[in-house]
């Protein structure tokens, strides 16, 4: 955190900084307000990096709130700075307001930030805390938000998380989104491409076994590494109208069983390791169908944002083709999520199905 100032000086200090830039090519820009709310934890550095990546794409006013649960004192520190989004002929820059708060001053937070939300622009709240935990301050922040972006990484109980998000969605007028949902957008896009035609989609409807490998290598930012693969298979099931019948866990292997209009299908989630891929990312998907088709969609180990697509049957073996994901950069998922408007119906369908699966052992 840069030099601390009194909360009443936030705007004047920002004005002072901007005045000092007069005569330079810095251009003050803002598309929306981005409020990041998180407990003080090891993920703060990651969230800061995410915010920096967001402004590189979309200049915004960032209000970054860090709540230190362990500190019981009266302490609320504020600081301001100007972040540069782009090093070009015209440097685009935007405001950053940081607030560090201890528990006794926690209730002051909404009052501190309220005068600094820029009017007429959307307010995106990245709620990097567990929404299943009661938090009256978070409720007040939600009140300002036009879009709440959760991160299921913060949750310890995935079905409870899904219920909490659905409740938020029902209760508030704000759109809801989820970083882990955004993180698997590439795979959703890939499925839409590979199974675009009627024939391919029918093949998928005849699946009997699906094996999903995910990167179980934990990082400081992400330790619930199976969430994205759970999301992917639940999304498939909900969109294809499969009915969940069972969920089991054997050692590290988690598997889901579904009833379908054809044969039952079983989805296996395999923890694996891949060095140059972010924690929790899906690494490959293998699909076997009762029509004897076999699909293998796997990341290229040399270039993990490339997915190699192989399809074979006893009579046919297609040449592999490729699908390109956006590069895994911290914040990229949030940038994508910001581009979307409204709440994804597919996301809520998936949450509903997931909330039906009452199994606390879903998260590793």
């Amino acid at each position, binding site marked *: 955190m840069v030099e601390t100032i009194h909360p009443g000086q936030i705007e004047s200090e920002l004005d002072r900084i901007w005045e000092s830039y007069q005569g330079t090519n810095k251009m003050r820009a803002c598309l929306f307000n981005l409020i990041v709310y998180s407990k003080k934890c090891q993920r703060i550095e990651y969230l800061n990096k995410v915010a920096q990546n967001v402004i590189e794409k979309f200049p915004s006013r960032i209000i970054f709130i860090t709540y230190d649960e362990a500190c019981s004192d009266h302490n609320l520190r504020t600081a301001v700075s100007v972040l540069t989004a782009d090093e070009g002929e015209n440097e685009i820059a935007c405001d950053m307001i940081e607030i560090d708060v201890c528990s006794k001053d926690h209730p002051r937070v909404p009052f501190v930030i309220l005068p600094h939300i820029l009017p007429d622009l959307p307010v995106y709240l990245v709620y990097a805390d567990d929404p299943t935990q009661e938090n009256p301050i978070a409720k007040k922040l939600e009140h300002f938000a036009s879009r709440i972006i959760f991160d299921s990484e913060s949750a310890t109980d995935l079905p409870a998380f899904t219920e909490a998000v659905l409740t938020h969605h029902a209760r508030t007028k704000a759109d809801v989104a989820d970083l882990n949902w955004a993180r698997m957008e590439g795979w959703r896009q890939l499925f*839409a*491409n590979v199974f675009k035609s009627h024939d391919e989609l029918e093949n998928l409807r005849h699946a009997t076994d699906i094996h999903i490998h995910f990167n179980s290598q934990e990082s400081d930012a992400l330790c619930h590494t199976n969430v994205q693969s759970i999301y992917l298979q639940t999304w498939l099931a909900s969109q294809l109208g499969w009915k969940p019948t069972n969920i089991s866990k054997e050692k590290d292997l988690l598997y889901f069983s579904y009833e379908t209009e054809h044969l039952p299908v079983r989805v296996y989630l395999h923890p694996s390791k891949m060095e140059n891929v972010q924690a929790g990312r899906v690494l490959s998907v293998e699909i076997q169908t009762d029509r004897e088709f076999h699909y293998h969609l796997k990341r290229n180990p040399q270039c993990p944002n490339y997915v190699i697509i192989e399809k074979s049957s006893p009579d046919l073996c297609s040449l592999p*083709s490729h699908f390109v994901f*956006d590069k895994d950069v911290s914040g990229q998922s949030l940038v994508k999520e910001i581009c979307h408007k409204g709440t994804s119906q597919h996301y809520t369908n998936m949450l509903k199905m997931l909330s039906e699966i009452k199994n606390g052992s879903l998260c590793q």
Partner: protein
Amino acid sequence: MNASTHPFEEPGQTSRTLDPCILVIFGATGDLTAKKLMPAIYNLKREGQLPTNFVCCGFARREKTHDVFRKEMKEAVNKHSRVKPIEETVWNNFQNQLFYHQSGFDDEEGYDQFATFLKELDSQFGTKGNRIYYLSTQPSYFTTIIEKLKKHQLLYEKDEKNESWSRVIIEKPFGHDYHSALALQNELMQHLSESQLYRIDHYLGKETVQNLLVFRFANSIFENLWNHRYIDHVQFTVAEDIGIGTRGNFYEEQGLVRDIMQNHMMQLLSLIAMEPPVNLSPGAVHDEKVKVLEAVRPYKNEDFEKWAIRGQYDKGYVQGEEAKAYRDEDNVAKDSNVETYAAVKLYIDNWRWDGVPFYLRGAKRLPKRATEIAITFKNPPGVLFKEHGQEHESNVLAIRIQPNEGIALKINCKVPGPSSPIQPVKMDFRYGAFFGLTPPDAYERLICDCIAGDSTLFARQDEVFHSWQFFTPILEYWANNKPKDFPNYPCGSWGPKSAEEMISKDGRKWRLI
């Protein structure tokens, strides 16, 4: 299958999925392929915007291997891509999908071999017989190529019996005048349908041009003012500081009106003046654009001299550098009467635009490069501020297409202090400040749209015809009445005096951009 019913697609949330296909570029050894098409295809590949099963195949007369073609294209992408340097992994993957076929455009055997080759590619890459033929050739080859494609069963439409589709993209000029455009259309329609034909106008692929529809129809504050009651006049400017370069032969045949005014500028005009379409489907948008072009008032005999001004650049200075006269350019006749400047005034005879003049000017060798649409509003009654002895300036909404893409609104404000003089100020929105500085190239968007079968951003035949219907009499008048004052503006100036006079007679002036 309807995209909206596909279980894995969600409007507004997932980007559209594209059919597998082979993109064939005729004239693959030309400048357009190297400078625009291949960099656009590479960037689409880099960003994962191409279909999973995709092949690009060059078709040209020069003999070369697949590998030589790949090497040349890699160099071209390295030089001309908007994102540099080239990403080796992306290229290495992409080049496996890049091929070359050598054949003359009228060589029967070449097409026979090509048909077999495409089938092989289909079976290797799962491209399912879907084809886009990009005719990056001289227009004189359009009919020959399309005829040969048809003859060798390489052109077909998707129907109940046939799941595969084929589409053809052609580059302007679409004819030399109304009659040749009609003749070209008749020839092409013998072999393919209008729905298979995509007339590319790269202006329509520019993000700022696409934003015109959003700006007009997603903002309620402007639409109420967008008519003859509030708008005094509209100016369209397409200014270039460069000369004709190495395109002497081309320019001697074309001239400025055919090069940019009849196509790009009339497309801009139709987007600015059109009524709201019933929806954003290609048909609905094209229908409204055509209505505007249909309503453009044809010139009467006396209008040609008054309202259609032409010019040709003389030697001068651009950006401080000496620049030679048009007639001294390579491959230009010493007594050439081809126009490098054109300014026209026109009216759109419909309810919305009754009596509002539209001024269009386009030129080479002006002081700077700028494309802009400026809407000047009528002044409010001036009774209140008369005593200050000041005329207020009109409100102007300026839409900058390039460079510095953005929108500026000029409004009048009070200068602080007791005497209350009125000063115009500008509210300025810049795309770059909000959405980054390297928007996708127009060709990227247009190629993608063609693969998706979306013709909204391509010109439809009736748009082309109506535009020619307006300009052909002007071009004929000019051909029959040689200019007496060419060259009539120095390089680096804002054009000939006659253009200034034309607008000043109306009590207006050209904007200084």
